[in-house]
């Protein structure tokens, strides 16, 4: 790995680390982070494929409320470095990514705890109406989140040229790597379960089963299934009266229909 590549690897992982706390531009998602790593390391194709595989696993990982998700950023950057620089399989990438996601989660919890100190400093700056001071506190905490990913990635990138990493990977027994690949086929459901739980919509579960059954017994690709899902969603809302407060439930229909002449009579009475 050249010096330029090393700098770029650190830069990409710094951006991924900062994105992972912000959750804005999505540079921390495996799909993006692994592709960028692949670009930097000169093997875009492998990076993209690894990103796709890891994205499936991380699909439902999200920070909701105070709950921290496993960290996709650290998992993506280090897995990319390892897979591309030591020519390992994508399966190995998945195997090492998951422990890294756990480590990343611990690190981000650590930094988010340190950030309490920045919060208290910001309070002091607020007393003095010191805008700049608060900004510095804010972006320092952000930088720490970036370094949390950049430093471990840089360490792995530094040893990736030596035989240390290769020896370590080769020392893993076949039954473990094979088993991890088998597990990689079904850990994806953890993400799906997180999404379903977050929705908290028991009454909408029939749509989940519908999606399952249609995908199982048809050859529609994801775009087709997505369009079908969107149509079902719109039809459901259009037909469901609870989403139409403005529209009054029909008045007792008989009264209205039969009431025509009576209404005229009333009107006549009043006119008279």
């Amino acid at each position: 790995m050249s010096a330029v590549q090393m700098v770029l690897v650190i830069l990409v992982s710094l951006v991924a680390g900062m994105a992972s706390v912000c959750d804005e531009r999505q540079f921390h998602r495996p799909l993006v982070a692994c592709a960028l790593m692949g670009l930097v390391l000169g093997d875009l194709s492998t990076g993209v494929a690894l990103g796709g595989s890891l994205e499936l696993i991380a699909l439902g990982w999200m920070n909701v409320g105070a709950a921290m998700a496993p960290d996709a950023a650290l998992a993506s950057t280090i897995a990319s470095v390892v897979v591309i620089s030591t020519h390992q399989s994508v399966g190995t990438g998945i195997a090492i990514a998951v422990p890294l996601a756990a480590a990343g989660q611990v690190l981000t919890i650590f930094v988010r705890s340190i950030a309490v100190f920045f919060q208290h400093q910001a309070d002091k700056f607020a007393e003095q109406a010191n805008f700049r001071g608060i900004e510095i506190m804010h972006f320092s905490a952000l930088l720490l989140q970036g370094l949390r990913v950049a430093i471990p990635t840089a360490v792995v990138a530094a040893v990736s040229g030596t035989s240390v990493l290769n020896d370590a990977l080769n020392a893993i027994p076949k039954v473990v790597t094979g088993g991890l690949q088998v597990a990689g086929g079904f850990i994806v459901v953890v993400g799906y379960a997180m999404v379903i739980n977050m929705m908290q919509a028991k009454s909408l579960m029939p749509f989940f089963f519908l999606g399952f059954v249609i995908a199982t017994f048809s050859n529609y690709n994801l775009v087709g299934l997505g369009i079908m899902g969107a149509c079902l969603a719109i039809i459901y809302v259009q037909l469901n009266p609870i989403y139409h407060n403005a529209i009054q439930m029909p008045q007792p229909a008989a009264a209205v229909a039969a009431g025509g002449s009576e209404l005229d009579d009333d009107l006549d009475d009043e006119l008279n």
Partner: protein
Amino acid sequence: MSTTTTTAAVTEANPASHEGGLTRRDYISTYFRSSFMLGSFNFERFQAIGVAVSLMPTIKRFYHTKHDQAEALKRHLEFFNTTPWIASPIYGVVAAMEEERSKGGEIEDSDITNVKIGLMGPLAGVGDPVFWGTVRPVLAALGASLALAHSILGPLLFFFGINIIRIATRWYGFKFGYQRGTSIVSNLGGGQLKRLTAIASVLGLFVMGSLVSKWTTIKFPLIIASYHAAGGKLVTTTLQSVLDQLLPGMAALLLTFLCMWLLKKKINAIWIIFGMFVIGILGYWSGFLGL
């Protein structure tokens, strides 16, 4: 919450035209600042510093003495937590209220805080299912399906797709909140947001269901019976083929429900994943599970 009185105060002041209000530069500055709002997320007051930093253009525009600015900054360093992108409409409402207050409107500090706190819960109830439950997983699944075939279009589709939605939410959300002021509080219970959330939830659940079937691989290669057919051909029946006759993908479906149950029991996702790794290794070693 004393939103009813403040609603009247802001709407009466013709919220559509803010004379001497925020400028286009303030809008742009607020947008950029808000796009880093979670940077200093901490376990004491969550997104607090990010809120203060995002609202700095507003505070500088409407308050000119050190004392007033300090008060406003302190006000916005209080606990705050919502779906990040959906915070922008809240900033807009807060900006409208701060403007009103700076012009001598009858708005107490506590009114601003109450509206802010009052909005973050209901809006997160929309933002979480829409953005984290539907927009991101659906785009990510599409992107990943392309990326698995080594196509660079996958990451590009995901990245640009989600960012266009994010930028639009933040930019127009802030404008909308600022122009409507506290009147959006009364709209919250209204139909539009509920419908949007329902549409997103149905689409999200439908796609999750199809992904459970399409992208989960659990194979049981265990041979439970084999015999030589008439032509001498070896016919084997695996556990997998028996299960497939019942319902293909049934194991994945059951595993999903197990995960949902475990997550509801507050078990950290990472432990569930490690548990699955152990099952994967044991299954592969024993030949019960295969690739």
